[in-house]
Every structure is written in structure tokens, then in C-alpha cells.
């Protein structure tokens, strides 16, 4: 795939120039996806945009918003001798209340990293005397794969496979942020790959009701700059529509087959988001007809709730209310090697992005956050 046009410096220069030209006053834009946050900081796009254009980082990092009690539950399941706990690599180092899945593995738990939900199902085939629990993380991007694995488990009669679902939906979180009286975000870059599945439709009502422009945006430099420019142009013109600046991948109606897979297997329900709270209709849980593959029902409910370390402000970071360097622990007590909150762990967490690309707080003399992760 020739991505050169979407990385073309001449096009980037024109888009940046145009953004400077059209912007007449300060605006606050949120990129909702952690992958976009990392791309913006890695490419230094934030430093090329007009000064009055503030980019804040949204809750679009699924491992960051997975609540600690759910991670504790996965860790508890991993400690059971009959269980193989399978999950994506991103989840391994995210702290629960007191531990991580990596630590659970070091302590003897059988924790496996998988690339795909189908790999977890394959583990159930090859280990018929064990119980394989797939700790299913991700937004609407990974949910169709989990759904496909569960449908196949049912059609093939695989009884030793179950799903611990931590799937969440992006539009519900955006709605939650828009309803917050403290919200200061005026325009949104919608996460391109999540929109590839659900399409632009779920955002139409949000754009109209809250009068915010929302632009479906990809991940290359030009994709991001186009998305930002379109949001600024609409803000300047007082317009609030959903537009698609990721046309090569996203159709307005989304991917209907992937949606069918999701809604065949899952139903939405309220879900706790780490550091944020309960968001209505934001989580995906297995429908009753798939109860036999629901790890929560198979193994019982999780233990008691937990709290974040007091100093960590990750909840505010995930809501776009604070930036990582505003946290007193950032780059000091909290680093990728010793994370206090999930956004410092994940490859898409905003705190890890700020740390890796050395966006240190102004006035701090420790400009170099150390060798770790900063290479």
C-alpha cells in the first residue's frame, strides 16, 4: 500500500498553512483515539499548529479505561490451575489494584498473549483439558473478532472457551464527555478505525444535539492534519456536522458484517471506565443465549472494587480535563517502568506519549525524563 501521499511534506505544509490562515481565535479539539495522540506527538504536529489551537487527548485507549476490578478478576482467574488466561499484549502490564497479568504469570499463572481472538479459541482446541478465558479488550475495532470467536465456539461446541468481556464503545464515551458541564472541547476527531466498524451514524446525533463538529480521522500525518483543519474550518464557520476525512477506509454506514457479528453476540450495558466512572450503554456483554461462554457467569463475579493510587490523575487525563504533565507524579513517581496509572502503561496512553516524546511540564528542570522509553 502506497501511503506516501498521506505522509507528503508538501501537502502537510499546505494543510498547516491553511489551518493558520483560517484560525481566528482559540479552539479546543479532542482527538479521541490514543493511537492518534501518539501519532500527533511522535510527528510533532502539535508544535506546528497555531498556538491557540489546543489538542486534548480523549479516552480512546481501551486498556487505560479497563477498570482495575476487572483486571483483578482476570488475575484471579489466571491463578486458577485449570485456567489459561489469554489476552492481547497491551493488557499485560496494566496494573489492577495490586498486581498485573505479567506478575500473575511470574507467580505461576498460565497467561498467554494472543494476536487475535481466534488464537485464543485455538488454544481451547489444543488444550481440551483446560479452561481458556479470553480477556477481551478493545473498542468496536476488536469486538467483532471476539464475537466471531464466540460464535465459532458455539457452532463447534467448544465448551472450554469463555470470554471475559471488557469491550467498550467510543460514541457512548463521547456522549458522556459532551454531557459533562465541565466539558471544554469544541470539536472532535473521531477515531478512524472505530468508525470503520460503526460508521459515522452514531456521531450524527451528537454533532446536532451538542452542536460540535466531528471529523472521522485517520492516523497518518496528512489524515490528522486534514481532520484538524476540517474541524477548525467548521468551528470558524459555526457549523457542526459529521465529516469523513478517512474516506479510503471508512464508509458512512460502517462495516455491516462486523456490526452484525457484534450485535449477534453482545448487548450494550452500563460500564465503569477507569478513572471516569459509570458510562451508560458503553460496555458490551454477552447476550443470554451465549451465557455458556461468559466467564463472569462461568467462574462467578469479580471481587470487591478498588481504588487508584491517590496521586494519579489519569481519570482527568482520560476525560481531556488535564494534560499528563499537570500530574505531580508525571515523570517522577510515575514512568513507563513504574506506572501508577494505566495511561502511562499502554502504548496508546496519553501519559506514555508525553513521556516518550518528552513533552515535559514547563518550568520543570528535569527536561530529560531519563533513558527509559525516551529513545
Amino acid at each position, binding site marked *: *500500500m502506497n501511503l506516501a501521499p498521506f505522509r507528503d511534506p508538501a501537502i502537510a505544509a499546505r494543510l498547516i498553512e491553511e489551518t493558520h490562515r483560517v484560525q481566528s481565535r482559540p479552539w479546543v479539539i479532542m482527538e479521541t483515539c490514543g493511537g492518534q495522540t501518539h501519532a500527533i506527538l511522535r510527528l510533532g504536529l502539535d508544535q506546528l499548529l497555531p498556538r491557540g489551537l489546543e489538542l486534548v487527548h480523549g479516552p480512546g485507549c481501551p486498556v487505560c479505561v479497563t477498570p482495575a476490578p476487572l483486571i483483578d478478576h482476570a488475575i484471579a482467574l489466571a491463578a486458577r490451575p485449570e485456567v489459561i488466561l489469554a489476552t492481547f499484549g497491551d493488557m499485560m502490564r496494566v496494573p489492577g489494584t495490586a498486581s498485573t497479568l505479567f506478575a500473575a504469570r511470574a507467580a505461576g499463572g498460565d497467561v498467554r498473549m494472543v494476536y487475535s481472538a481466534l488464537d485464543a479459541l485455538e488454544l481451547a482446541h489444543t488444550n481440551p483439558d483446560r479452561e481458556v478465558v479470553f480477556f477481551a479488550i478493545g473498542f468496536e475495532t476488536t469486538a467483532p473478532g471476539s464475537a466471531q470467536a464466540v460464535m465459532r465456539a458455539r457452532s463447534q461446541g467448544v465448551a472450554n472457551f469463555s470470554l471475559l468481556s471488557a469491550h467498550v464503545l467510543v460514541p457512548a464515551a463521547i456522549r458522556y464527555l459532551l454531557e459533562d458541564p465541565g466539558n471544554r472541547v469544541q470539536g472532535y476527531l473521531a477515531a478512524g478505525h472505530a468508525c470503520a466498524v460503526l460508521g459515522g451514524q452514531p456521531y450524527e446525533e451528537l454533532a446536532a444535539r451538542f452542536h460540535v463538529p466531528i471529523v472521522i480521522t485517520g492516523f497518518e500525518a496528512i489524515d490528522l492534519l486534514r481532520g484538524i483543519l476540517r474541524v477548525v474550518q467548521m468551528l470558524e464557520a459555526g457549523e457542526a456536522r459529521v465529516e469523513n476525512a478517512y474516506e479510503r477506509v471508512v464508509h458512512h454506514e460502517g462495516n455491516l458484517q462486523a456490526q452484525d457479528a457484534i450485535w449477534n453476540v453482545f448487548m450494550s450495558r452500563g460500564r465503569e471506565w477507569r478513572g471516569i466512572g459509570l458510562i451508560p450503554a458503553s460496555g458490551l456483554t454477552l447476550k443470554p443465549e451465549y451465557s455458556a461462554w461468559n466467564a463472569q457467569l462461568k467462574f462467578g463475579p469479580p471481587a470487591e472494587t478498588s481504588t487508584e493510587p491517590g496521586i494519579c490523575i489519569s481519570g482527568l487525563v482520560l476525560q481531556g480535563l488535564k494534560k499528563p504533565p499537570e500530574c505531580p507524579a508525571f515523570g517522577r513517581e510515575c514512568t513507563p517502568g513504574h506506572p501508577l496509572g494505566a495511561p502511562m502503561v499502554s502504548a496508546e496512553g496519553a501519559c506514555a506519549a508525553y513521556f516518550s516524546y518528552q513533552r515535559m511540564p514547563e518550568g520543570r528542570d528535569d527536561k530529560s525524563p531519563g533513558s527509559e522509553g525516551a529513545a
Partner: protein
Amino acid sequence: MCIAAPGRVIRLFQREGLEMGEVDFGGIAREVCLAHVPGVRAGDHVMVHAGFALEIIDESEVARFQQLWREVLTGGRAGEESP
């Protein structure tokens, strides 16, 4: 976690009734589930995330984008994103 990688479908096959494909990611081939992209053909580019193709990449959009910007940068047009 929502980063997806573009790859080119080398061949399609079925595994126990599931549509699968071998996809080339710049020289590295991997098996990918194609169940959610019906109509995909060998040679198509797909966006792949966690072992599943999310969508077929619309190459006509890529060509349209390239053509438009070629015109913009050679002075033929004022700019795609201009109001």
C-alpha cells in the same frame, strides 16, 4: 490498540467454514480473518486489526486524493480543504 495495519491479500482460503486470507504486510505474510469483508479479492488492500480485516481499502479514494493534491501543488487549484 486501535492501530490497524494495511496489507495486501495474497490468497483467500476457508478454514472450517471461516473466510481467511494470507495477507502481505510489506514482506511479512500473516493469516487474517476476512469474514467481515465479503467480496474481498486477492490483490485488494485491507486494514487489519488484531487478526481481522476491518475494511477493504478503497484505492479509488487514494487515487482521487493523489490527483487532487497533484493539482493543488502544481497551482491548478486553491486547495481541497479550502471553504
